[in-house]
């Protein structure tokens, strides 16, 4: 607007950058097959421990989706020694914060404690992994809590849009088409026997990794791991591979009716690529330019030029198999079609012509520069090492990350956009007021429109 009036020469120049290295880590294999990964960082007297097992949601049996998440959460709901209330009390009296979850590719129990309490907290963590009780009362309660969560989703446009987006994206038989935590029917079908057999089949040290980051040596971490997990045995379970085929190859619009909604939650995208794809770096930088940063094309267009939204972003969900690529935003109902049109124009534009050198340098210098800021805490270092382990990335992945980002070229970005953005097979999901959005979307001509209720059943 007034850029000619701005004198850029007054801006400070950066000094010489100080060197930074991702924390050094050591990998060891214990007798019972556990892999131990230790990063010693001594800034504060704190340690984070994560125990990963090959027991992610991708391992759920068909019809019983949600079991992986229930098993992970039930680990913290009681051991043979302590019922759930007592177990929570024992961890928390030590100040240990502990959480358990299963994502698509693994399950993890993650604990952070002050160094002085670590030995006792680590022993408890071992008890949780080795001797969960899975009491029927707790199984039923957690199932009930998941059903409550699903019920809440029916009135929560953001979560509903995310969930139904996956359902319309993947072929119905794909695990990825169903929610990570399961749906009403699948969760209701899970009983204690299934929980127990899932645990016995997948929570095995041969496929487990213990990650320890913080104020501790590798030798001490090994000693505590051995003590805590003594007697846990079993070879690695077989790898389960999720089906990532798309539901359809042509465009379609799915309107989930929420009458009188003041905004439309909009999701536009398609099945993306697996984390292991060789184009990962080019695609990541391409996405930063398209919709990954505040100053990305999509956000500047929708928010700062048009004032359509509080924010609009795009992203790839990186999994072992192809996760979704999605553009997400929430816009005022009466401009839903206009916002969708701008998103599609931006996708077309980044596929049609090379990005400016300036745009490339913004994305790469951001991803490069922000790298040390991502690893300030024991929890974030642990999470980064978990990605390395679960996705099977090379040992020097974090050492070479910045160099790989800086090496991405304008040509590679254009190629990545052309190969990995698929405007012809995009699905559009709108959670909003059909009386406001249907006719304009019809006129937009993106694709056939189907209307659903908040359970995803076709309606009207």
């Amino acid at each position, binding site marked *: *607007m*007034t*850029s000619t009036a*701005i004198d*850029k020469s*007054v*801006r*400070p120049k*950066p*000094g010489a950058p100080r060197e*930074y290295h991702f924390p050094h880590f050591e990998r060891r294999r214990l007798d019972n097959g556990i892999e131990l990964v230790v990063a010693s960082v001594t*800034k*504060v*007297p*704190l340690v984070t421990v994560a125990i990963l097992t090959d027991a992610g949601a991708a391992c759920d049996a068909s019809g019983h989706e949600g079991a992986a998440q229930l098993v992970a959460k039930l680990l*913290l709901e009681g051991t043979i020694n302590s019922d*759930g*209330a007592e177990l929570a*009390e024992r*961890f*928390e*009296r*030590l*100040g240990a914060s502990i959480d358990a979850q299963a994502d698509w590719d693994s399950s993890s129990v993650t604990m*952070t*404690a*002050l160094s002085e309490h670590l030995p006792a907290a680590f022993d408890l963590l071992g008890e949780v992994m080795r001797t969960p009780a899975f009491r029927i009362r707790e199984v039923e*309660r957690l199932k*009930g*809590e998941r059903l*409550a*969560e699903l*019920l*809440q989703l029916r*009135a929560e*446009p*953001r979560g509903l849009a995310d969930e139904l987006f996956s359902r319309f994206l993947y072929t119905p038989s794909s695990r990825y088409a169903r929610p990570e935590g399961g749906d009403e029917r699948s969760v209701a079908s899970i009983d204690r026997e299934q929980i127990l057999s899932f645990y016995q089949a997948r929570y095995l040290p041969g496929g487990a990794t213990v990650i320890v980051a913080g104020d501790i040596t590798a030798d001490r971490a090994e000693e505590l791991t051995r003590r805590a997990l003594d007697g846990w045995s079993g070879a690695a379970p077989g790898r389960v591979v999720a089906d990532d085929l798309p539901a359809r190859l042509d465009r379609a619009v799915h309107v989930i009716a929420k009458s009188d909604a*003041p*905004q439309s*939650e909009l999701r536009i995208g398609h099945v993306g690529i697996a984390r292991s794809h060789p184009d990962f770096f080019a695609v990541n930088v391409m996405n930063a330019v398209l919709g990954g940063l*505040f*100053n990305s094309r999509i956000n500047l267009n929708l928010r*700062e*030029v048009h*004032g*359509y939204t*509080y924010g609009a972003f795009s992203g790839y969900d990186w999994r072992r198999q192809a996760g979704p690529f999605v553009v997400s935003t929430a*816009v*005022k109902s009466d401009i839903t079609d206009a916002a969708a049109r701008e998103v599609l124009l931006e996708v077309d534009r980044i596929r049609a012509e090379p990005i400016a050198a300036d745009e490339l*340098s*913004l994305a790469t*210098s951001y991803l490069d*520069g*922000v790298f*040390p*800021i991502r*690893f*300030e*805490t*024991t929890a974030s270092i642990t999470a980064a090492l978990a990605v390395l382990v679960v996705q099977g990335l090379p040992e020097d992945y974090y050492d070479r990350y910045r160099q790989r980002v800086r090496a991405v070229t304008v040509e590679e970005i254009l190629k990545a956009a052309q190969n990995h953005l698929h405007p012809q097979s995009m699905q559009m999901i709108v959670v909003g007021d059909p009386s406001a959005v249907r006719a304009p979307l019809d006129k937009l001509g993106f694709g056939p429109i189907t209307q659903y209720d908040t359970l995803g059943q076709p309606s009207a």
Partner: protein
Amino acid sequence: MRIPIETFRLPNGLFVTLSEDHTAPIVAVNLWYHVGSANEPPGRTGFAHLFEHMLFQGSADVDANEHFELVQRAGGTLNGSTWLERTNYFETVPSNQLELALWLEANRMGKLLPAMTQQKLDTQRDVVMNERRWSMDNQPYGTWMEKLPALCFPAEHPFHHSLMGSMDDLKAAGLSDIAQFFATYYTPDNAVLSVAGDFDPAEARRLIETHFGPIPRGKGKPPLPDMSLPPVFGQWKREVVPDDIMLPRLFLAFRSPAFGTKEYYAASVCGAILGVRNGSRLRRRLVRERQVAADASAFTYDLAKGSDLLVVDVTARPGIPAEQLEQEVADEIDVVVRDGIETADVERAVALIQTSFVSAMQQAGERADRISLFATYFGKPEMVNEELGHYEAVTHDRVNEFIRERLDENNRASLLYVPRDAESVELVSAGAEADAQ
């Protein structure tokens, strides 16, 4: 752990704190302006927050949207936030980019107005209205953020009105309001600048003097009215909110001692005993044992002026009606009032608070923000190093004293969300009964 803090004040009134840590080549710059929604005059609700958006729209030497771009190009993260008592702006950057971050903050503190245009204001007003729809109007229970303070503070009290503002007030805001608000509140003598992380203190001081030194002192700001309130509500205030939701949810608030006071720490420990993590009282009783709640938590607003609020937040399990939810929560609080809590409860709560404090202080941005908070509210940044001591000194007697004084029926405010459909069903059946009579 002890966080090192050095302080000085520039002749124009800017209070500066420096906290060195050379673990990683990262530095955080954090600027607090002592102005929030509490300072808004009637008819201008939402203005402090709208203004925060305008601060990202460029200044004399920075183009529109360039603020974000310059920081991200430097490899930094950034944002701003508005609260009842303050507005803050912060970036964490590689340490060789410290001067850029300081220059950007100084440029918008000293030279914002030449860059303001009607078009920028109109766009940001639209963005904020969309933020309101996104975070409140189209979000289940989203309106609690403005309904709870409105219920808990008297109509004329500065904490009563909505931080996000009403759509009408937002529409009425003009460029002259922007100019006046800026001149009144965005002055060096109404701000605290904290720098934490990897820097040389002498060099940082020189840069701060260079970039912030020339900015003139302000002319003072209008005083806030007397914010003090009686220690208790004096009644059980109730509001029922029909909303487009599936499960009832109760926000039960207690007026409590202002943030930073000795009594505040007992209130904060009480909150952790009631509703922080799985072993907390309400989680154990209502979620695990009684199974009437899907979730339960507790928190304090941390208001430093007049009085604070301790809030218990409980969502019903499917099938539990709103009235029962409220009764179950009240019964649990009554038991706590009757029997008190024990030493073990305090130990659990304080142990969790210790871990989360140390966890948070690993980040340069968190350290800078916490230091700015104590410097802004009390002029005492060193309070950041006294916090844990205050928590560790809390005894079960002190928590029980707080409970006796503050948790009983004459100090409760409940905001009860009920599914709109359920309510209409009830209204219909109540109407039918009335007809029958």
